[in-house]
């Protein structure tokens, strides 16, 4: 299988998805490998969703939420932060490269920050430099 590598981005409705919208309006470019999934809050992203995406062949997963203390539901990003630790540890247990997962805070007025995070992740995973690069453990 030689699918285009994909990075799944879980963006919360109130900050990061709004930032992605703004990035679109401002015509900021970000890599085509990013697939945004809108969630109400990063606090609702169960670690299993991240593992599932990676196991199904996503090159990486990035969770993007409101800055700590700015979450629309108050504690959501703190929960995401706590979960990010268990995700990181579980990836380590399973021997999955840590760089395939990331958590970032972006407010609705920071589209540049969002785009930079997307670019950085996709470069880190070696996507976009050459077309048709294989995903790590593709097809697993």
């Amino acid at each position, binding site marked *: 299988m030689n699918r285009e590598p994909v990075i799944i981005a879980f963006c919360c409705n109130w900050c990061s998805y709004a930032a992605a919208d703004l990035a679109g309006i401002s015509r900021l470019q970000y890599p085509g490998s990013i697939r945004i999934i809108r969630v109400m809050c990063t606090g609702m992203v169960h*670690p*299993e969703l991240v*593992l599932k995406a990676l*196991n199904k062949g996503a090159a990486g997963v990035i969770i993007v939420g409101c800055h700590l203390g700015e979450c629309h539901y108050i504690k959501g990003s703190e929960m995401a932060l706590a979960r990010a630790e*268990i995700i990181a540890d579980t990836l380590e*247990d399973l021997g999955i490269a840590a760089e395939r997962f990331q958590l970032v805070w972006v407010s609705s007025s920071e589209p540049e920050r969002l785009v930079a995070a997307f670019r950085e992740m996709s470069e880190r995973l070696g996507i976009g430099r050459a077309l048709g690069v294989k995903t790590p453990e593709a097809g697993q």
Partner: protein
Amino acid sequence: MSGVALPRLCCEWLHGCSGCEVALLNGGDLFLGLLEQVDIVHFPLLMDHKCPDGPEGNPSLPRAEIGLVSGGVASKAQLEVLRTMRDRCRILVAFGTCASHGGIPALRNQWTTEQALSTVFHGDDCEYSSESESKGWLDRIYAIDEWVEVDLLLPGCPPRPETIVEVVAALAAGQQPQLTEKSVCEHCPTVRTGSGRMTVRRFLANADYEPEEPMDSMRCLFEQGLLCMGPVTVGGCGGREMPLCIRARVPCRGCYGPVRRQGNQLLDLLNILASKGIDHRAIVDRISLLRFSGAHGLLKPNIQG
């Protein structure tokens, strides 16, 4: 015996410990009662009857309405037996946690088959190592539903004798067996306040309780900081009464497997800790939270090793 044929029951065991079969026997009178409702056509623990080779060298088994398979799948030979069971039985039941989720043997999915074999059978003078290839080990331990369609999961390590008999009797009568889908916690009488200790204690630490007081005055073990797997484990071990381990005032170790079908007991439990703000790093050997459900690719060798 009257002329009416009883539904036939066929049992096979794969990568398990025979504890599930013994649990069925442990049903005592209930088991004897079952003998009037089914006709056992094949049951390696009970009858001097092996799974013989058919004409093409494949395993051959009698036809049956109900098939119970205990144990997961570790080798090609076991896979053949499993496929034959699927082929010969109308209803196929994953009997016990090994068959349903990999069970204890699947703990070795944290290593490759080669690593496991060379660790256990090390040294040049071990005859076993040369044989291992012809035995046809698979790359890991599988739950049976990873290979064939399974009609019912009957988890438990082992399942309750009463439950096994009820399930077989229900199937024999053409009914859908009723198994709980609720977690161990839902069957647990301990006192929950919604808040508790913010640190994890060692699993072997003793719970705090007054021996003469009834169970429903003991504080929930999870809230006491013990790593009770009740919230992520499917109930049923206590029948209509309280869960077995809780009854002994020790935390649930998760032997019935995940409460959500295809759930991940490790991630779900860590997730609970994270949501409560409890530091999961205090857990020694967290990977063992998958001790009963390492099949389905949940436990993998750590390639970085």
